[in-house]
């Protein structure tokens, strides 16, 4: 085990996969000479050069398309979006091309590509730069969607995503890049896509959290434990699609209560999907309605006090747990 930040864990995963497979290359804005806008690719251009780490013009649709074509022709591109907000410009290549190519071609052309970058809010960057887009992509068949919340998950899942033969939407969180965690040693450490992780064991209530809300959920759980001696379990799906609903359902069958915490806007969110699937599979086990905590249904404001009011928080999660536990 080595302690490192999520940023460094991602960087290590990229580096190891660049070494392991020469068909892997990184392309995106400022990923090379600049070391990445958020330094996730730090040092990689110096080490691997122009061929493997490529600075692209600001043409999201174009370089996403380039990645899709390169993947079709056998390479394994890792396409960085400086932030996922900008991927909306590239969504046609992701949704209409990458996601459908394998099916459309009758199983002839799979697209081994990873689209990655920071998702969600980032300290007062306002409405055009603060969106969490997991629901936007998870609705479309043909895409896998991953959202790590710890350094170990970040490294293990990114390596699996790069080795996966399908398009993977890999969603990071800028405000979490600096968070530290223990990461197992060795190039062989990977975490399979589609497997949830119980981040905290508990018996009285389940919180399903992902990315941004996982640290909040863990804090909330501690607080609830102290204040009310109620034991909260925190489940992190880690992969949104395919979703490990079984682990979530088993937790709910044990606790009979569920809170879902997410950074995205609420309407037709991944949280709504999890709620539906839990109800479908554990309806009779639910002792209270499932409660969802999301970012408010308004564009993200700039002012710090408004931004904080818009986002999910430990307080909001605690309140939700109290509600479903009738505390």
């Amino acid at each position, binding site marked *: 085990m080595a302690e490192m930040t999520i940023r460094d864990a991602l960087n290590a995963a990229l580096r190891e996969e660049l070494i392991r497979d020469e068909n892997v290359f990184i392309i995106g804005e400022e990923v090379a000479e600049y070391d990445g806008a958020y330094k996730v690719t730090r040092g990689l251009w110096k080490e691997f050069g122009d061929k493997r780490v490529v600075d692209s013009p600001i*043409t999201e*649709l*174009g370089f996403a398309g380039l990645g899709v*074509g390169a993947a079709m022709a056998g390479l394994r591109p890792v396409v960085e979006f400086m932030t996922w907000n900008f991927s909306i410009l590239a969504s046609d290549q992701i949704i209409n*091309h990458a996601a459908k*190519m*394998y099916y459309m*071609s009758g*199983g002839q052309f799979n697209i081994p590509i990873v689209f990655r970058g920071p998702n969600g809010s980032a300290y007062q960057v306002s409405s055009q730069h603060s969106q969490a887009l997991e629901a936007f992509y998870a609705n479309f*068949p043909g895409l896998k969607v991953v959202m790590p919340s710890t350094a170990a998950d970040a490294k293990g899942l990114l390596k699996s995503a790069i080795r996966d033969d399908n398009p993977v939407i890999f969603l990071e969180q800028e405000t979490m890049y600096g968070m530290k965690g223990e990461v197992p040693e060795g190039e062989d450490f990977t975490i399979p896509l589609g497997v949830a992780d119980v981040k905290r064991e508990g018996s009285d209530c389940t919180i399903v959290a992902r990315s941004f809300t996982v640290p909040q959920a863990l804090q909330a759980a501690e607080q609830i434990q102290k204040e009310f001696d109620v034991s909260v379990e925190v489940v992190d799906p880690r992969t949104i699609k395919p979703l490990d609903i079984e682990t979530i359902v088993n937790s709910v069958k044990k606790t009979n209560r569920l809170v879902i915490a997410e950074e995205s806007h609420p309407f037709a969110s991944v949280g709504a999907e999890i709620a539906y699937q839990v109800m479908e599979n554990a309806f009779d086990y639910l002792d209270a309605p499932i409660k969802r905590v999301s970012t408010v249904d308004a564009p993200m404001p700039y002012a710090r006090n408004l931004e904080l009011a818009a986002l999910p928080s430990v307080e909001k999660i605690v309140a939700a747990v109290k509600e479903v536990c009738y505390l």
Partner: protein
Amino acid sequence: MPKTATRQKADDKKTRVASKNGKSETNETASPTTPSAETDIVDVYDVKEAQAEYNKRRKSQIASIKKLDKELLREMLYQMILGRLFERKCAEVYRMGKIGGFCHLYIGQEAIAVGSMMALKEGDYVLTSYRDHVQAMVAGITPEAVMAELYGKATGNVKGKGGSMHMFSKELGFYGGHGIVGGQIGVGTGMAYAQKYKGTDNVTLCFFGEAAVNQGIFHESLNMAQLWKIPCIYICENNRYGMGTSQKRAMSIANIAKKAEGYGMAGEFVDGMDVMAVREATLRAIERAREDGSPTLLEIRAYRYMGHSMSDPGKYRTTEEIKKYQERDPINLFQDSLREAKVFTDQDFEELVAKATAAVDAAVKFADESPFPDESELLTDVFAE
């Protein structure tokens, strides 16, 4: 007098696949007069002018034809005839309800696919738009597999999952069959990027229509291709219309090849009714690309005989206009040159027509007799394992 000779031959049914008993070939119920001045695009590029330029090239062309391998020439002509007859058959069976969804035919543009693709070598890639039947067959996908796909059968080129717009063959280097206007320009750029990345001298032919040129991805892709020397040959098939909209109603300039200058890229205008001209321009582009990866934009101008798709009534152009362009039918022009070059006789032509007719009939029979896909296919090929 070769010209009159040509005209006489033009009336010899047996050797003419192009014009169907003199009537203009289209599925349109086009109005006899121009519906709106806007849609009269003859001023943009005059057919007579094109023919005049063609006549200037003619001598040297005959000479170069004589130098070419006779079997290659035979195959080129055969593929043009096959494409023409296959598409006619599609129109016929589409009307019988055998084909669903959209069906975009290639009639009138055969010289572009044949002239350019037959200049490729092993390892080169091709991709195009939804108007993909002929490119697919020139790439080597059998008429059976294409027709069965149109029928939505399990034996189709992509197992009935794609239909008319989405033909693919990894084995034959045919990368589709894409339905989003302009989408394949980005994908093709990436395919060529991979060819260079792997250190090969292979190239990618990326076909798209003139209306796709207005899409942002054209601009984004050409900039990257020139910036990084990506061996992609961008072939704009200018068939004068994007659905019901003539180029001049959708684009602020007439000369698409000129757009290459905005990227510092090589660009060339090509007469798309002249298969030899297409071949030679493509060979020049291929040479640049194999050399150091330099991309090229080719504007190859032809004409879409049929409506945009089988469901297009086509009220936006006149029968005069259609007829005018059909005077320079690419198959007729090529046959005339071959005859003049004394490479083939009318009998050779008849044989090729017969062979193509048989291939098309066999394709229909195959498609008709094939089974529909099993329902279990619905959920396969979503993810690669």
